[in-house]
C-alpha cells in the first residue's frame, strides 16, 4: 500500500465514519432518554435513501403509504384515549398531526412532480415522508411499554426492525438504488482527489452534530431530554413529560437516520436491508462510548469507519467479520473497567 491508497482509504473511512458517528449519536440519545436500544435506526437510513431515490425516479415512494397507515393507527389509538377522556380538542389535535399532516405530505409528493424539483426540495420532501414515522413508531410500539425492562424494549426494537425490513422489501423491491450526487465537483489535493459528495457528507454531519450540541445545551427541550436521560422520575416530577421526551428523541433519531441515508445514497448503492448493517456499525461506535458518552461514541464510530476501510483493502471478504469482532475487545475493556453491577430493575 502506498501513501496515495492509504489516503484514499482514510478518506473513505472518514466519510463512512462520519455517518456512523451520526447514527451512534442518535443511538446514544434514544437509549439514554427512553432506554430503548434502537435497532431500527438503520431502517431509517435505508428508508431515507430509497425514498429519495424513488422521488428522483418520479415514483411514488412506498414509505408514503406507511406514513398514511401509521398515521391512521396512531389517530385510532390516541383518539380512543381522547374520546374516553371526553377531550375533543385533543382529538382534533391528534387528527391534525397524524391524519392531516401525512395527507398534506402525500398531496405534495403526488402533485409536485418531485423528479423535476430542485435537489434541496427533494431532500425536504423525503425527510417529510420518513421523519414523522419516528414518533409514530414510538407511539405504537414503545410507548405502551415505556416502563418495561431494557430487555423487553430491546426485543420490541428487534421486532420493529424485522417489520420495517420486510416493509422495505415490499415498498422498494430487492434491487438497490443510488441517487444523484449533491455536487459533481471534485478537488485535487496533491495527489488525492476529493469529490464534492465527500465534502457534503462531512459538512452536513458536522453541521448536524453542532446543531445537536446547541439543541442540548441551549434549548429548553434539549435540556428536558437531558434531564429525562439522567433521571426519568425526577424529570417527571419537574413537569417534563416522558412521552414527549420519547417522541422527541425518536423524531431526532429518525431525522438523523433519514439524513444519513440521503447523504450516503449517492456514494453507495442502498438496498432495502443495507440500513441494518450501517446502523449496527453505528452501534459498535456507541458501545465504545458505553452507550452514554456522545464524544466517545462519535470517536468510536470514526474508528469503525477507518477500520472498515483498511480491512476492505487487506481482507475484503472478512470486512464485516473484522468490524463486528471489534466489539469483543471493546467489551473486554468495558468489562474489566466495570464495577460489579448492582440490581438493575
Amino acid at each position, binding site marked *: 500500500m502506498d501513501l496515495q491508497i492509504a489516503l484514499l482509504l482514510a478518506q473513505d473511512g472518514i466519510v463512512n465514519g462520519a455517518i456512523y458517528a451520526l447514527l451512534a449519536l442518535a443511538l446514544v440519545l434514544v437509549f439514554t432518554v427512553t432506554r430503548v436500544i434502537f435497532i431500527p435506526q438503520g431502517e431509517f437510513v435505508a428508508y431515507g435513501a430509497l425514498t429519495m431515490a424513488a422521488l428522483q425516479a418520479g415514483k411514488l415512494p412506498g414509505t408514503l403509504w406507511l406514513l398514511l397507515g401509521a398515521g391512521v393507527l396512531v389517530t385510532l389509538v390516541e383518539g380512543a384515549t381522547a374520546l374516553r377522556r371526553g377531550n375533543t380538542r385533543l382529538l382534533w389535535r391528534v387528527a391534525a398531526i397524524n391524519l392531516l399532516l401525512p395527507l398534506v405530505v402525500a398531496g405534495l409528493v403526488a402533485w409536485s412532480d418531485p423528479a423535476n424539483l430542485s435537489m434541496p426540495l427533494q431532500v425536504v420532501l423525503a425527510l417529510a415522508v420518513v421523519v414523522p414515522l419516528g414518533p409514530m413508531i414510538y407511539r405504537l410500539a414503545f410507548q405502551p411499554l415505556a416502563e418495561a425492562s431494557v430487555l423487553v424494549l*430491546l426485543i420490541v426494537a428487534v421486532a420493529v426492525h*424485522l*417489520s420495517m425490513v420486510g416493509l422495505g422489501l*415490499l415498498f422498494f423491491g430487492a434491487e438497490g438504488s443510488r441517487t444523484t450526487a449533491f455536487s459533481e465537483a471534485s478537488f485535487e489535493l496533491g495527489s488525492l482527489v476529493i469529490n464534492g459528495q465527500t465534502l457534503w457528507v462531512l459538512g452536513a454531519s458536522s453541521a448536524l452534530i453542532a446543531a445537536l450540541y446547541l439543541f442540548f445545551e441551549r434549548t429548553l427541550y434539549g435540556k428536558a431530554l437531558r434531564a429525562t436521560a439522567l433521571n426519568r422520575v425526577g424529570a417527571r416530577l419537574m413537569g417534563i413529560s416522558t412521552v414527549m421526551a420519547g417522541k422527541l428523541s425518536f423524531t431526532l433519531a429518525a431525522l438523523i437516520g433519514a439524513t444519513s441515508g440521503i447523504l450516503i445514497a449517492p456514494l453507495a448503492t442502498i438496498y432495502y436491508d443495507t440500513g441494518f448493517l450501517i446502523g449496527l456499525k453505528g452501534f459498535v461506535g456507541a458501545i465504545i462510548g458505553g452507550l452514554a458518552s456522545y464524544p466517545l461514541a462519535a470517536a468510536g464510530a470514526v474508528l469503525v469507519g477507518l477500520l472498515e476501510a483498511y480491512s476492505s483493502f487487506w481482507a475484503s471478504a472478512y470486512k464485516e*467479520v473484522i468490524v463486528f469482532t471489534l466489539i*469483543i475487545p471493546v467489551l473486554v475493556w468495558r*468489562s474489566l473497567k*466495570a464495577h460489579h453491577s448492582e440490581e438493575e430493575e
Partner: protein
Amino acid sequence: MKPHIPLIALLLILALAPPLLPEFYVTLLNYIGLYALVALGLVLLTGVGGLTSFGQAAFVGLGAYSTAYLSTAYELSPWLGLIVGLGVTAIVALFLGFITLRLSGHYLPLGTIAWGISLYFLFGNLEFLGGHTGISGIPALSVLGRKLDSGREFYYLIWLVLLGAVAITHNLLNSREGRAIRALKGGSLMAESMGVDTARSKILIFLIAALYACVSGWLYAHLQRFVNPTPFGLQTGIEYLFMAVVGGAGHVWGALLGAGVIVVLKQWLQDLLPSLLGQSGNFEVIVFGVLLVLVLQKARDGLWPWVARWLPQGPGVRVRPDAARLPRRAPQAPGTLLLDVINARKEFGGLVANNNISLTVKAGEVMALIGPNGAGKSTMFNIISGVLPLTKGEVRFLGKRVDGLPSRQIARLGMARSFQHVRLLPAMSALENVALGTHQRGSRGVLAAALHLERTEEARLLAEGAAQLERVGLGDSLYREAGSLSLGQQRLLEIARALCADPCLLLLDEPAAGLRYLEKQALAELLRKLRAEGMGILLVEHDMDFVMGLADRIVVMEFGEKISEGLPVEVQNDPIVLEAYLGGAD
C-alpha cells in the same frame, strides 16, 4: 383429570404421528422439534434468567458445521462431530459470557448480535467450509446400527432429544441450582446475600442454551445432509427468540408451543403473502414483527399460560416429612466476639453516610442499631453484609477481615440478613423462597440436578425450609405464593429464609415493621429463643417498645455519626439521644 394425562396423550400422539402423517407434516414436525430445542435454551436464558441472546443461530451453526466438516473432510464419526461441536460451542459461550455478563444486561444481547453477524460472514468466507455454497454429502447418522436416512426415521431421534432436554430443564429448574437461576430475574442482590454466585448461574444458563442450540445444529446437519450459512444468520437468531417469547418464555413447554406456532404460521404466511401482495419475498417477517410487539404489549407471558389454564396442575414442590435434618454449624460460645466494625466510613460522592462508626456484636446478644430516618443504618447493614464497599475502616467477622469480600462469601461464613424493603420472588411459593436460604448448605451441582440424582439432599433442604417457616409462624402457608402473603408475613418469611442459612449472626432490617401487635410479640419471643441458643442478632428497628424490651445493647446513629452507645436504660436517658429524637430543649 390427573396431571400426567396430557403428557401421556402428547407422547402417544408424537409416537404415532410419523406412520400416519404424510411426508410434508413429518418434515414440519422435524423442524418444530429442531427449533423448539433452541427455543428451550432461550426459555431458560430469557424467560427464567432474564438474559437474552440473538446469536443462538450462530451456535446452531457451530454445531452443524463442526460435524459437517469433520464427517466430510476427515470422514470421522458424526458422534465425534457432536463432541467437537459441543466443545467449541462451550468455549465460545464461556468466553462471550465471561466478557459480557459482568456488564449490565443489554451488553449480552448486543454482543450476541455482533457475534451472530461475524460468524455468519465467517462461515460464508472460509474456503474449507465451502464458502456460501456450503458443505454437501454429509453422511447419515447411525443409531444402534440403524441408519437414519429418512425424515420419518430421524423424527424419533429429534423428538427423543427434545423431550430429554425438556425433562432435564424441568428437573434443573426444580432444584437448588434452579432456584438460584430463578432468582436472577429481579432477585440477584438477595440471592448473593444468601450465598448464591449469580455470575456463575448466569454463565451456566448461557452455556446450557448454547449447548442446546449446538445439538440442534448437529441434528440439522445430519437430517439435511447439507449445510450452508443461510440458516445460521441473525434473522434466524431473532426468530428463535421470537418463538420463545410468543410461546411463553417462562415455561419449558412454551418453547414447544412457540416453535410450533411460528413454524406453522411461517409456512402459511409464506404461501399466502406473496400471492396476496403480488411479489415474492420474505414478507412474513412483517407479520412476525407486529405480532411480537403485540404479544409483548398485551400478553407479556406469551401463549403458554392460556394453554396451561386448561391443563390439570401438578402438586408443585412438596416437603417430604421423613427427610433427615441438615447438619448444623458448630455454635459459638456465648460472649464470643462475632462482629467487629472498626471506624467504618462510607461516602456516596460528597455525602458521608457513615462516619467512623464502630460497633460489636457478641454471640448470644441482641444489639440494636437505632436512629432517625436517614441516619445511615441501612447503609451500615449493607456495608457489614458486603453489599456496599467501605470507603475506609474495617469489618471483622469471626476474627476474619470481611470488608471487600462479596456478600455471598460473607454469607457463607455464617452471616444472614433480611432486607428493609422485602426482597422475595413473588411468583414462587413461600417454601421455595425460604429454600433459597439453604443454598450454601447444599452441594450437589447442575448435572445431579438435571438428572434428579440429588433428591435426598433436595428433600433435606426443603424440610429445613419448612421447619424454619413453621418456626416463624408461617407453617400453614408453605405452598402459598410468596407475593400473596401480607407484608408482615413477608417480613417473617425473610427471617425464615435467613435462618435457613444456619447463621451465627443474624442481621434484621426493621423486622417488626408492618407486623400486628401479637405478631410482634411472637417475633420478640422467637428472637429471644435464638439469642438463648447463642445466636448474635443485629437489629435495626424503629419500634422503641420492641427494641427496648429485647435489646441487650444499643447503638444510636444520627446523620451518619454514632451519637450514643450503651444499655437500653442508659441510651434512653442520654440527653444527646433525646435531642436527636425529640428536638433541642431550647
